[in-house]
C-alpha cells in the first residue's frame, strides 16, 4: 500500500482559484516577554470558556498549564540557572556540529527581519539566570494526525493550508485527540476522564459554546477570510508571534537563528521548519532556546498515519490468522 499521508499540494488544488498561499506563524521565543496578550486575545476573539479553577499552578508565571479545548495559545515559562543555560548552549552547538541541515543556506543581505533585533523588549538575561518564554499553539502540521484520523470529515485543510474543525460536523468521537503528536486538540466536555475539567463553574458561570466537540486553534479562519491577521499575532506587542506566508516565515526564522548564532547564542534553534521531519514540517515554526521537551514539545514527533499502511497489513494478517484458526478448530473438533 502506498503512503496514506496527505499530499497537501492536492488539497490546495482542490480549492482551485480560491486557494491562497500557505499561511504560517513564526514564533520567535527569544523576544517573547511573557505578557500573555496572545492568550487573552485568542480567548476573547474566540469566546473560549475558562479553563481550570483560576488556581496558581506553581510553574513560574504559567497558571494556564497547557493547550486544550479551551486554551488555544499557551505561554510557557521556564526558569533556568547557569547550569541549564550552559547545557542548552552545548546542545545547540551539537546540533550545528551534527550537520543538522538548514533548509538551504540562509540568504545573505540585510539585517534580520523587522522586530527581530534586540529591541529592548526582551527581559534582561544574566549569565546566572534566564527565563524562557514561549507562546505555544497548534502546529497546523503539513501531515496532520488529527485530520487524518477524523472519521466524520469535521477536520479539514483550509484554502490557507491550515487545519480546522467544523463544529457542526464533529460528533465528539475524540479520535483526533489521540491522533495529534503535539497534544493540542481536545474534546470540550465536563469531567469524564480528566480531573481538570471538574471545575466549579458557579462564580464564573458562562455559556459553553460547542460542548462535546473537538476544539483547537482555528488559525483565526474567520479573520483570514476577511484578510485580517490572526488575533494572537496582531496583539503581540513584541512581534514575537509573526504571521505571513509560510515561505517568508521560514526564511525569517532562518535569518534570525543565524543572527543569534553570530551573537554567540548557539542555543538558538528552529522547530518545525524542516519539511523532512515526522510531520512534514509545521505551519507554526518556532525559534527555541533549549531542547523542545523543555518547553513541553515532543522531541521527535511522527504523524502516526505514516505507519498506517503497515498497521493495516498487520491487521489483515491477523484477521486471516483468525479465520484459519477457526477453520482448524472445526477440523480438530470434528475428529473427536
Amino acid at each position, binding site marked *: 500500500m502506498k503512503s*496514506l499521508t496527505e499530499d497537501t499540494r492536492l488539497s490546495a488544488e482542490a480549492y482551485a482559484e480560491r486557494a491562497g498561499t500557505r499561511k504560517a506563524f513564526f514564533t520567535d521565543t527569544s523576544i517573547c516577554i511573557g505578557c500573555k496578550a496572545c492568550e487573552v486575545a485568542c480567548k476573547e476573539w474566540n469566546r473560549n470558556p475558562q479553563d481550570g479553577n483560576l488556581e496558581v499552578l506553581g510553574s513560574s508565571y504559567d497558571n494556564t498549564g497547557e493547550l*486544550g479545548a479551551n486554551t488555544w495559545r499557551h505561554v510557557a515559562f521556564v526558569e533556568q540557572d547557569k547550569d541549564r543555560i550552559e547545557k542548552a548552549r552545548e546542545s*545547540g552547538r551539537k*546540533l550545528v556540529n*551534527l550537520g*543538522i*541541515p538548514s*533548509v538551504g543556506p540562509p540568504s545573505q543581505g540585510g539585517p534580520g527581519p523587522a522586530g527581530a533585533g534586540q529591541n529592548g523588549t526582551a527581559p534582561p538575561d544574566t549569565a546566572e539566570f534566564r527565563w524562557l518564554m514561549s507562546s505555544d499553539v497548534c502546529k497546523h502540521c503539513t501531515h496532520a494526525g488529527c485530520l*487524518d*484520523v*477524523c*472519521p*466524520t*470529515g469535521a477536520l479539514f485543510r483550509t484554502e490557507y493550508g491550515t487545519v480546522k474543525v467544523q463544529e457542526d460536523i*464533529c*460528533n*465528539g*468521537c*475524540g479520535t483526533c*485527540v*489521540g491522533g*495529534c503528536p*503535539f*497534544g493540542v486538540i481536545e474534546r470540550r466536555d465536563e469531567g469524564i476522564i480528566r480531573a481538570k475539567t471538574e471545575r466549579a463553574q458557579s462564580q464564573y458561570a458562562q455559556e459553553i459554546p460547542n460542548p*462535546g466537540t473537538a476544539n483547537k486553534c482555528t488559525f483565526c479562519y474567520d479573520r483570514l477570510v476577511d484578510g485580517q491577521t490572526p488575533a494572537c499575532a496582531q496583539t503581540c506587542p513584541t512581534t514575537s508571534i509573526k504571521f505571513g506566508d509560510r515561505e517568508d516565515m521560514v526564511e525569517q526564522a*532562518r535569518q534570525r537563528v543565524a543572527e543569534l*548564532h553570530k551573537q554567540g547564542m548557539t542555543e538558538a*534553534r*528552529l*522547530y518545525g521548519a*524542516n519539511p523532512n*521531519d*515526522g*510531520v512534514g514540517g509545521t505551519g507554526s515554526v518556532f525559534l527555541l532556546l533549549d*531542547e*523542545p*521537551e523543555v*518547553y513541553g514539545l*515532543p*522531541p*521527535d*514527533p511522527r504523524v*502516526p*498515519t505514516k505507519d*498506517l499502511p*503497515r*498497521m493495516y497489513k*498487520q*491487521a489483515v*494478517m491477523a*484477521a486471516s*490468522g*483468525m479465520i484459519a484458526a*477457526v*477453520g482448524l*478448530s*472445526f477440523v*480438530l*473438533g*470434528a475428529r473427536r
Partner: protein
Amino acid sequence: MVEKPQFSSYYGRAVVKAPPWGDEIAAYLFLGGLAGGSSLLSLGAQVTGSRTLQRNARLTALGAVGLGTVALVHDLGRPERFLYMLRTFKITSPMSVGSWVLTSFSTGAGVTAAVEVDRLTSQRLPLGPLRPVLYALEGPAEAQTALLAAPLCSYTGPLLSNTAVPTWNAARDELPFVFVSSAALAASGAALVSTPVRDTQPARALSALAAVGDVISMKLMKQRMHPAEAEPLQTGAPGTMLKWAERLAVGGAAGAVLLGRYRAPAVASGALMMGASALTRIGILRAGIASARDPRHTIEPQKARLQARQADGVVHDSITTAG
C-alpha cells in the same frame, strides 16, 4: 554510541493527550471481538451442520454487536450525531473504516439473528408477507457477517495504534494479533457457556489456539517496545489486569480442553475466558491512557530513536534544526 537519554519535561506535564475514551470503549472492544468471533463460529457450525452451536453463536453475535454499538455511541461527545460517522469514508481513519465494518456487520447479524428468533418462537415474529424475504436473505447475510467478522476483530488494532499515544502506537505490529486472539477466546468462551457439550468440540479447540495466540502475541508486543512504552502494561492497575487476563486465559483454556466434556466445568472455563478477554481490553485501553499522561513515556522513546538515527548518520529528518 547512543547516549543515555536525559529526561527533562515541562513541569512534568503531558506532551500528548489520550482520546477521551472511557471504559465504554473497552466494553466495545470486548463486545465487538465477541461478536466477530461468534460469527465465525456460526459459519463453521453451519458448514459442519452443528445447528445448536450455529443458533447460539448467531444470537451471541447480534447481542454483542448491539450492546457494543450502544457503548460506542454513548461515549461520543455528541451521541445524536452518531450517523455522521457514515457521511464519508476515509481510509486514513481506522475509526471511519471501522464504522463501516461495524454497520455492515450489524446489518447482517441482525438478519441472521432475526431468523433464529423466528425459528425459536415457531414463526411467531409479526413478519407477515416479509417472512420469505427474511429467510431468503439468511444466506447472503451469513456471508456478509462472516466476511466482516475477522476485520471487525482486528481493525481495533490500528484504531488504537494510529495515535500518538505512546504505548498504543508502539504496539502497532502486534496489537491486531492480541485482539483477534482475545476475540477468539471470548467467542469460544461464550459458546462453552451457551451450548451443550456435544456441540462444543470446535469451540474447545479454538480456546486452546486462542490462548496460545494471546499469550505469545502479548509477550512479543511488550518485548519489542521501548521499556518506557512497555512499562504502563506492566505496572499499576492496568498491569495487574493484564497479569490476571493471562492467568484467566490459560486457566480457562486448560479447563476447556481437559474438562470441557462436562457441562459445569465447561461453563466455568468459558466464563474465565470471557473474563480474560474483557480484562485484556480494559488493561490495554487504560495502559495507553496512562502512557499519555506521564511525559516520560513520550519523551524518552522519542529521544532514544532520534539519537539512534543520528548515531547512524541520519540527520535530515529532525524537527529541530540548527538553521
